[in-house]
């Protein structure tokens, strides 16, 4: 007969709730400029989206166009899906953020990086991949989104199961 949610309904839970409510609120305003990527908050909602398109929308609120100025470096075949080295470089100017999406992971958004002034638009990291699918890098430059896509073949999945 207890109503409490978990073992510790702490301040954290309450804060998460508040963030969610705030994000939903923003989503209702058609021209709200303060998207998750533009402010300092952790983009909780974007990380929860299942598909790549929804995650991009939740994170940036717009769509990306493919660009050959974004160079995505990923292996053709990843033997171990738990550790796939992926990096991105771009020759675009005024880059403000770079994000990585793995299309068929349970949640598409893997990582999002904010690039302040003076930081080079070059990021290397290692991601998990559930199966063979496209890896998409999104670069936000001068308010627009540019993407690069590459298929990586995975022999052993890295998301359990």
């Amino acid at each position, binding site marked *: 007969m207890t109503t409490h949610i978990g073992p510790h309904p702490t301040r*954290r839970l309450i804060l998460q709730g508040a963030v969610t409510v705030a994000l939903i609120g923003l989503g209702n305003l058609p021209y709200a400029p303060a998207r998750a990527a533009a402010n*300092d908050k*952790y*983009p909780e909602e974007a*990380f929860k989206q299942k598909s790549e398109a929804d995650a991009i929308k939740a994170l940036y609120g717009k769509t990306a166009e493919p660009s050959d100025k974004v160079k995505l470096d990923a292996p053709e075949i990843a033997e171990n899906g*738990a*550790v*796939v080295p992926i*990096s991105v470089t771009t020759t675009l100017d005024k880059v403000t953020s770079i994000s990585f999406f*793995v299309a068929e*992971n*349970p*949640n598409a*958004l*893997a*990582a*999002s*990086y*904010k*690039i*302040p002034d*003076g*930081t*080079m638009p*070059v*990021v*290397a*990291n*290692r*991601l*998990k*991949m559930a199966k063979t699918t496209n890896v998409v890098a999104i670069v936000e430059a001068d308010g627009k989104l540019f993407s690069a896509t590459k298929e990586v073949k995975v022999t052993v999945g*890295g*998301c*359990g*199961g």
Partner: protein
Amino acid sequence: MASSIRVRATTNGDITEVQALIQHPMDSGFVKDAKGELIPPHFIQELKFACNGKEVFVADWGPAVSKDPYIKFSFKGAKKGDDLTISWTDNKGGSDQTTAKIA
């Protein structure tokens, strides 16, 4: 306790290259343990790099970042001997912080 963060920051004149390796399980919440029970999600959400108090790089991570994450980036405007502060927080409220000198 030894720091969970290992970092190497080297400058060659204008550009400082930073490589960091963090010890963290990065459990996604999809993996089962030996008993067949799901291991709850436990992953770093935010990772920040600040040089002399100014943020130079911020990472928002989901559980799809590999265990013991590695990250590399570079930035301008630092010189030898400057302080680089690295801090992270995870989804369970854990955190760690370290300061390295740029070499």
